[in-house]
């Protein structure tokens, strides 16, 4: 079981997630990119926990999941609210805070 495979897979997942966040306009899809990045890091946590025989990494992965679940609730609520007012889910339409 080569550790490199796991880390590379995690990196690929993270890169896909980051690219999604940076390139896609749809807020839901951006959100999915965020989730993908979180899960990529979870994978790294679990991998290293397994290798070192230390449960701390796995515990942290659980924490990340819990926080992500909470974040999804809040994030989706915001997105739905924005969609209701602006009839659009594009992140580029929400630019009221520009300089």
């Amino acid at each position, binding site marked *: 079981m080569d550790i490199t495979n796991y880390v590379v897979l995690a990196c690929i997942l993270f890169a896909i997630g980051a690219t999604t966040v940076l390139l896609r306009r749809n807020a839901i899809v951006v959100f999915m990119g965020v989730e993908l990045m979180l899960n990529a890091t979870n994978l790294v946590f679990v991998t290293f926990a397994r290798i070192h025989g230390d449960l701390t990494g796995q515990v942290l992965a659980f924490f990340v999941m819990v926080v992500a679940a909470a974040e999804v609730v809040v994030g989706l609520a915001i997105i739905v609210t924005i969609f209701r007012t602006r009839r659009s889910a594009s992140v580029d339409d929400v630019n009221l805070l520009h*300089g």
Partner: protein
Amino acid sequence: MNDVIGYAPWLVGFPLVGAAVLLLGGRALDKWGHWIGVLASSASALLGGWLLFRMIGADPAERVADQRLWTWMSAGGLDVDLGLRLDPLSMTFVMLVTFVGTLIHFYSVEYMAHDPHRRRFFAYLNLFIAAMLVLVLADSYLVLFVGWEGVGLASYLLIGFWDHKRPNAVAAKKAFVMNRVGDMGLIVAMALLFAHTGALDFGTLFDAGDAGAGEGLAEATGAVSTLDQGTATAVGLALLLAACGKSAQFPLQAWLGDAMAGPTPVSALIHAATMVTAGVYLLVRSGPILDAAPTAQLVIVIVGTVTLIFGAIIGCAKDDIKKALAASTMSQIGYMMLAAGLGPVGYAFAIFHLLTHGFFKAGLFLGAGSVMHGMKDEVNMRGFGALRRVMPLTAWSMFFGWLAILGIPPFSGFWSKDKIIEAAFTGEGWQPWVFGGAALIGAGITAFYMTRLMTMTFWGRPRWTEPEYHPHESPALMVWPQVILAVGSIALGGVLAFGDVFTTWLEPSVGHVEHHEPVLSVPVLMGATIAVVVVGALVGYLMYRRDVPAEAPRGSVLTRAARRDLFQDTVNEGLVMKPGQGVTAVLVTADTGVVARGWGVLAVGLAGLGAWLRRAQTGYVRAYAASMAAGVLIIGAVIVLVATLGPTAGA
């Protein structure tokens, strides 16, 4: 005196309380408040009279008493006690200020009867009396300075009493500002004294340590005897500057004429009888310092001489009765300064003349006020004439004041002014001839302009018409103070000169001096003085007895110059005001051009930078995410680089 000095603070207390009550009492006191002022001043005068009799009753050696009231401030080596000094010199002033002051209070009740702000006027008068008493009763320079500033304030408030008229307000400001110049002198003198002796109270400075009071200042071995010549001269000149400001002496004399803008009782009390003589008081009080500084004394004598001629010349050309009297005041104080500068030989005469002058000049001013009262506040003497028929009591009281200021024996002025002229002729070398001669000529000019004033006002033909003006004698409350002052003008000098009563009386304060023989014999001088005076008076009478044109003729160059106060304002404006305005203009330009504009440019630059940087905030979430990602990447790259290269570089 030590048993009764406990009452001395009340001298100041009565008028101070009076002023406070009148100022704080408000409109409720408008109807009868002035009687509070009169009462306060009278109480002070009565107490002063009682203290005077106690002092006369005391042994001459015990006539100087100091009372320490409380510690005012204590800072490092400087301990200033608030204290009063009661001695013959201050007692003389107390009597002059409270007695003449009370008479003028009574006079003002009627003079200001129709003024809506009479209560405020009396409050200021009381304030003045209190401040003046602090000035003369102070036992240290610092307490004296409090009174000094207090009378300056009262003077300012009273000159500008009718400040709804712009010239009056300007005159008040002018007096105040010019007095500040003099005050600088007093502050510098105090600083020098403190730096060199560490004390500011008269006891430490002037009195012998253990010999006690009564030795007289001439033999004093106080702290001033340790001053070296240069310091003493500097202190003396600084004190002279202070005296010039307060006493309207050359070159700070320009404010006095304008100060006549105030109500006439004020001109009589403050700008003739008392406050303007404070400079002379200061110099006489500082006698031991001046004795150690012959150069300063010489300068004082020169200033006095210049002013006495200067004022007399101006007095000859003024048609405004009050301004003529103001010029005369300036000139007479010049005599006092001259005497004070002569040293111990002159101190007593300076104070003596100050006292008699206080009476006859106050009387003359009150007379002028009475004339104005009857002539609808007209001050131009060209519109007067023959007023003796309609206001006989005023004319008689001014007549005696006139005889007194001329120095006709046996009236008051003769005894004091003649002594000053005599003293001016004392000494060696060129000085007695120059100063004595100037004093003698001054007496002649004085006779001329005072006779001119009297002739234009009371004698000759009337130049007013009956329906337009209705001159009448003033009410009793105005006439009686004039009469009492006229009695003083007649008798005071003779009574006090008889057997040298006054000079002996002042000895505990100014020291005893052996008589010096003048360069000419006394009878010759006396005769010359009287001759000059009579000639001056005759010329004045003959010139103005007949028709006086309603419009002033063009006159000679000197007349025109004198009408413009010998260009004192022009000189002040050219030398001080214009350059000052120039400096201000330059500073304003520098301020707007360099400072304000510099900061403006900086602010605009920062705003531009901000606007430019603002464009980085696009509002697009993805852009922020990209910058975050880039930042994380850079930080990661740096960490990797450091981790790889660091150990090698460190090794």
